[in-house]
């Protein structure tokens, strides 16, 4: 695994990789929650808001390992 942090620039402004990974993580968690709602699988969770936060963290870490090292 490449441990050097990725760099993103927008118009010459550098964005922290954690921010990019975090945004990706939240978007993926949102998409997963949407699917779980659609197929009524969210009823099996005790407290979905906490599950959403956990999913966002997991996806962010996963994105950090696979796509955007931070």
């Amino acid at each position, binding site marked *: 695994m490449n441990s050097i942090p990725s760099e993103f620039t927008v*118009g010459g402004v550098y964005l922290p990789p954690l921010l990019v990974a975090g945004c990706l993580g939240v978007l993926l968690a949102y998409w997963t929650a949407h699917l*779980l709602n659609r197929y009524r699988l*969210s009823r099996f969770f005790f407290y*979905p808001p906490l599950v959403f936060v956990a999913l966002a963290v997991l996806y962010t870490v996963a994105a950090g390992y696979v796509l955007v090292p931070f």
Partner: protein
Amino acid sequence: MTKITKFKEAIKTGLAFALVFGIAMQLGWMNPYWAGWAVAVVALPTAGASIRKGTLRVVGTIPGCLAALAIHALAPQDRWIFLLLTCAWVFGTSYLMVRRPKTSYFWVMACYVCLVILLSDLDSSENMFESAVFRTVETVMGVVVYTLIAVFLWPLTNLGAIKKSSAELAATLGHIYRAGRDTMLGERAPEAGFQGLQAKVVPQLAQFGQVLQAEGSESYEVSQARRLWERFHGLSTALLETAGRWQSGFAELDRIDVRAVFPELSAFFAELDSRFAALPQLLAGRSTGYLPRTILLDADPAELERLAGFDRAAVEVARKEMERLEELTAALVECARELEGHAASGGEAKPMLAPGVKDRATRLPVPDWDHLRSAAFVAATTGVGFLIWILFDPPGHSGWFQFSGTIALIVAAVPPLRASRLIAPVAVSSAICLAIYVFVMPQLSSFLGLGLLLFTCMFLNCYFLSGMARFFSSMAILNILQIQNQQVYSFAAMANVFIFLVMGFTFLFVMSYLLGSPRPEKVVLHLLDRFFRSAEFLMSRKAPEPGRVSGLERWRIVFHQRQLRSLPAKLAAWGKAIDRKRFPDNAPEQIQALVTSVQTLVYRIEQFLETGSVYRAKPLSPELREDVKTWQAGIENIFSAWARKPEAEPVAALRQRLETGLVRLEERIEEVVNRAGGEVSREEGENFFQVLGGYRGISEAALAYAGAAQVINWSHWREERFS
């Protein structure tokens, strides 16, 4: 509003927006966007509404500034006392904001301005007084500029709106009365049209209240007669409630020949017809020769004797409501005559004659649970925002304290508004303003260019958007463009503001879970739980054995009465917020029927609570004490079960149980009445049958609720899901 009017209003707002920036920058005032905020917020469709909002904004700014100076003076170096005092002020003002709808905006400003001034200069307190003064002056300037433009350029006035609104309100109340009259006389199906008319009159009442405030701000004549118009509003509200209570008892009158029981019924209705016909005429300023006369509604004793116990009880309950209807209509006509100058009140204050409202039984303040929750939400959000700022200092810095508290105020003012729904509009409008900041603003070199840009932004905002979308778009324009006299451009700073805005709304979304789930269906379940707990409490305190009631007990009774009266409206608001697509099994009509049945229960419980103690009506009562006690215990158990599970009592089983109890009690009444013979006085008999009617009314309303509840898919609402 037509497209042309919208176009003109957008031009007025854009012009005022650009002008206030010009004035503030020309004079070198601190933070010109403060004046811009005043224009963006007070720009309302009519001059009267703008003047009122502007006045509240200016007047509310002063206590906000004073509170900020006091907090800073008391805790200049201690962050925890600073936090405690600020949260206490935020809690108090936000509680008053939701508690007092008429002056709500004054309290919003008192809270918001305090947060703004506290953070106006983070490095030292030396400029704080200056900030407070500039904030006040710029707010006044913004309000004055917009008001002048609104008055002189294409003015839109409210003059005459109050007469139109009151005449429409009186006409709808007349329709409601006629629907009730026809149903009682058997000429119309029960409930036909009543719900529709009630749904029509509630917004009319709210609109009348708004028109009164707006026209009162621009018309001296209306302002002078404000007390009378407020009385008219109060009487109309009371009349609507009384009509609801009257109509909720029609099912029990079904098998009774009411014309025979009330020989004067035709004359009674004829008099009420004349009053409802005269009301719109009087309010429209047309003279009418009508003068109200007192009418009595006595029941024929011989016909009453022939009725079974429960039928007699139903007649007593209906008579009481009709007498109240008579009192209210007479008071309304009198009020309309005074408004038109046909009669004089002599300046004396008159009682409102509202049903279900007795003299305050306690001197202690009686809070509303939801108002306390809303205030706690705002104070907690402000406090946690402060901790995030001082402990982590993420992008946005002090904004976590000030901005989060302000947006929490908006969420608290409109409870069904979901914080999660705000994230997308804020992100989009902020992104557009960020692009303007980066690509357009650096090209501007004079105020002409800047003024044109400001005018265009505000014009487009006002023309294309409305409501909350417009508010948040204005917020993006003012926060992202950050116009100052010494303009400095920093993409990083503005990108941070953008990130902060999105993070701030996400933070609010998380905080909204702090005091329970914000999901509408969960809130409905929670409100029903509270409703039935209050109903059970009040039923249990209908003292079976009269005794001395402690001060605390009286306070609890008043608290639960208030809960009971306020919860149906909250249920209706949250019921409408439930996502239909996610819960296709529960149609809006089914939810509306559930809310209606809850409202009927409130009417019947209030009617019952207003009656005297059943045990005072001797010699009937001692004989029936045990039967009535058993029945009351049964009703309390039902309410207790519904508080835990709203569908706990299936309608068929409940009907069988209640009807068996009714038949048994009816037989006992016959037996006791026959035995008592002529010993029972008329007054004792009336009291007793009113109480009995109360019990029956509650039973019937409980059956109606059970019927409405059994068609709802409750398990789906209880399921957990992501918001």
